[in-house]
């Protein structure tokens, strides 16, 4: 049905054309789910955009052929190409929060799309919309579709998005990371839905993703891409079961397994970075950090912590019910241990991080740090010792570094802020050493954050946290914005740092497999309540809470027989 041959996409720039995709080939049959996998910058989305004819200007198709059935997609003029969009090829985007027009009801958006492509009365279009939404698993669709997108949850919205893509019976749907922004439970429902639509309606899917677990679970065939080039393709069982190319193996190896804990991850070859402690290096930053934590590592404990936010007031007379984000949370982190915190979005993971760092004031409960009382919120003074001892690494490395400061200024800040190093030249020297310690070139010190990739920025964020000489590190989804290979590197780095300096780490993630690699103990949260708390091995091997079992069973994993080929 879809045949792509020798596709080359170029983006003109001041320094000549940049080739985003080179000599790409793929075929998708009706009812086939074709996975397109690779890391960010591999050109996956560009292939999808080229097929549907929505390449971001000034990008253009420089060579190759694109056929959908008998239609040569490259010869279509603007009007014909636009008429074909939605009619024969549709698209599903990554983030259901942003891919629906917030000002129009679901019904208006569906009816509009149906009537665009078919000469059909409004009431017929409405009836079709109701059927479709019900097929997607939205109950009481006739009433629900009068609602606006913000009145639906993330998973429901993605169903609406799929309904919109499907409502004109297209032959091909390009799904660009359709489940990346969703929780595991919702992800598995959406993947099931996609599988069913492919089987029943014989729609072809181009499933663009960076998650090999998703590919392993539902794709019939797979194409591996790297830097715009085709690495390997074929039926999923063949490519993942007997990977021919080294890169495919590396990519699979970098995926954290759910069923065991690795000491270190294998890292794709030319992304190498010097690992800590592998060579007998003398690093001043390392010595400096060791000197700071020569005293014993410290622990942290929470007792009955509750955080409630006031609800939105809608009346003069009634006080709104508060929204309880964390409900009676108690746990203890032993000195030098790693506590993993897992849960879906909205479970209170990030609220917990904010409470620990003193950004939020708990409504009830007490916290202690190294046995001493730790006040919450504004009660914790600007100069409270914990401001230095607890440091944080955030999820998004693009917004957590000030883009107007040089790396040197960013890294020196904790040193003068906490009065650790008085002399500016010494601070700079130490910042350089620290860059070396986290595996970055020292010349990075005079650059700006935008000159680095996501993984490099996250290393800088870790370096900044370490320069405060912390004893407790709170990592809030530190790898969620990163590719698997970069994630593997960062996890290696965190493991090394933890081993070398005895840091106490609270590692927050929605990804159970990632947490397994890091955590000694695991806390499972749901709707602000503790579902399970225990040693990592127990929680993963013998989960006691039903919710933990559910999360574990829904996480996409690679079948064991495929995973063993990994180097």
């Amino acid at each position, binding site marked *: 049905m879809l045949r792509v041959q020798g596709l080359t996409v170029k983006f003109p720039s001041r320094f000549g054309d940049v080739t985003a995709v080179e000599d790409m080939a793929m075929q998708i049959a009706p009812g086939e789910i074709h996975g397109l996998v690779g890391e960010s910058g591999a050109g996956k989305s560009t292939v999808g955009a080229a097929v*549907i004819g*929505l390449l971001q200007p000034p990008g253009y198709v420089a060579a190759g052929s694109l056929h959908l059935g008998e239609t040569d997609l490259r010869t279509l003029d603007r009007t014909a190409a*636009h*008429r*074909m*969009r*939605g*009619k024969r*090829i*549709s*698209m599903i*985007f*990554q*983030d259901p929060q*942003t*891919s*629906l*027009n*917030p*000002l*129009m009801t679901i019904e208006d958006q569906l009816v*509009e*799309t149906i009537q*665009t*492509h078919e000469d059909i009365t409004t009431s017929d279009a409405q009836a079709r919309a109701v059927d479709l939404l019900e097929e997607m698993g939205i109950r009481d669709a006739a009433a629900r579709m009068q609602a*606006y997108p*913000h009145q639906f949850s993330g998973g429901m919205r993605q169903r609406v*998005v799929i309904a*919109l*893509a499907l409502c*004109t019976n297209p032959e091909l749907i390009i799904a660009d990371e359709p489940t990346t922004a969703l929780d595991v439970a919702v992800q598995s429902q959406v993947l099931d839905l996609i599988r069913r639509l492919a089987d029943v309606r014989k729609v072809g899917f181009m499933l663009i993703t960076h998650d090999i677990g998703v590919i392993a679970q539902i794709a019939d065939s797979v194409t591996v891409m790297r830097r715009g080039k085709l690495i390997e393709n074929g039926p999923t069982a063949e490519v993942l079961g007997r990977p021919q190319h080294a890169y495919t193996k590396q990519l699979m190896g970098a995926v954290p397994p759910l069923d065991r804990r690795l000491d270190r991850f294998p890292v794709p070859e030319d992304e190498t970075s010097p690992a800590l402690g592998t060579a007998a290096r003398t690093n001043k930053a390392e010595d400096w950090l060791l000197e700071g934590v020569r005293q014993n590592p410290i622990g942290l404990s929470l007792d009955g912590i509750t955080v409630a936010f006031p609800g*939105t*007031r*809608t*009346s*003069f007379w*009634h006080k*709104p019910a508060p929204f309880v984000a964390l409900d009676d949370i108690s746990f203890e982190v032993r000195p030098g241990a790693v506590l993993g915190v897992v849960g879906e979005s909205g479970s209170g993971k990030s609220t917990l991080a904010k409470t620990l760092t003193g950004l939020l004031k708990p409504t009830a409960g007490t916290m202690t740090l190294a046995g001493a009382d730790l006040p919450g919120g504004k009660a914790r003074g600007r100069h409270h010792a914990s401001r230095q001892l607890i440091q944080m690494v955030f999820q998004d490395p693009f917004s957590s570094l000030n883009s107007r400061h040089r790396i040197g200024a960013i890294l020196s800040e904790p040193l003068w802020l906490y009065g650790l190093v008085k002399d500016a030249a010494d601070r700079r020297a130490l910042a350089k050493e620290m860059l070396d310690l986290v595996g970055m070139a020292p010349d990075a010190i005079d650059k700006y954050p935008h000159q680095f990739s996501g993984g490099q920025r996250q290393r800088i964020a870790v370096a900044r946290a370490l320069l405060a000489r912390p004893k407790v590190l709170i990592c809030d989804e530190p790898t969620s914005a990163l590719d698997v290979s970069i994630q593997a590197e960062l996890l290696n780095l965190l493991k090394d740092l933890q081993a070398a300096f005895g840091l106490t780490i609270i590692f927050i993630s929605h990804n159970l497999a990632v947490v397994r690699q890091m955590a000694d103990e695991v806390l499972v949260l749901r709707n602000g309540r503790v579902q399970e708390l225990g040693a990592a091995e127990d929680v993963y091997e013998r989960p006691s809470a039903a919710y933990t079992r559910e999360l574990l069973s829904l996480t996409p994993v690679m079948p064991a027989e495929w995973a063993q080929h990994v180097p």
Partner: protein
Amino acid sequence: MAYFIGKRLIQSVFVMLAVAFLAFSLFRFVGDPITQMTGVETSVADQERLREELGLNDPFALQFMRFTGDMLQGDFGFSYRTRQPVAEMISSRMPATLELGVVALLISLVVGIPAGVYTALRPRGAATQAILMVTLVGVSIPTFVIGIMLIFFFGVQLGWLPTFGRGGTVTIGGWETSFLTVDGWRALILPAITLGVYQLTLTMRLVRAEMMEVMRSDYIRFATARGVPMGRLYFRHALANTMVPVITIIGLQFGGVIAFSIVTESVFQWPGMGLLFLESIRFVDIPVMGVYLVVIAFFFVLVNLIVDLLYVAIDPRLRIKDVS
């Protein structure tokens, strides 16, 4: 919803009280009202009697309460200059200013919004560059220069349009309107353009910036990928999503247009509130100035309340359900 409006109304009351206090201070403390009202020949005893009669010896708080109370009952006091009630003077001038402001606003919207959409969709086109340049020149030149230039070309050189006054007006129920006569419209064109140019540029640039932002959003890309016709895409999907910030600025600007039409009114000898204000300043007619202040503040508060309600009408995400 009722809570939302109620909260806004209470805030508005405080704003109005603050402005009334300013107006009152102006009246009470900028010069001595008795000296302003009386001539040199009034004896000191008479002045004292007048002072006592007008309650100027009462405590400050009492005087302010009386001032506010009088205002609420529609009693705005008398002009020093013409001895007429201020309420009458302001209300006879208000239609001229409001009509001028509304027409200026309409011109800025009718031209500004489509121009903003066009320049956003064709950011590199020659027409876009030309529009952006011309409007930049438009805002860079002071309003009165634009007014004088328009008078020079269309009034003096070409002789097409009148250069001052309101032309023919018709009075309906105490409202003197120039909308019902050809002469009235002819007289309205030049001042309305003069007053609207700045708003037009602002609206256009804001619509352009917002539109370019929205066109990059996921839901526009998704709508494009579904094949939604381009016209609907631009106007139904994209333009509607630019409206919240645009309306905020238009609202604030409209208050400004009413308040600062002074320059335009004086260039075109437009008999509106702005001209009245200028005359009052010249004769230190403090009661008129004070009331003008209160009336303008009232317009600002009213327009902003309307803007807040429009937000809710435009964006369903702001519609908080009442707890019943």
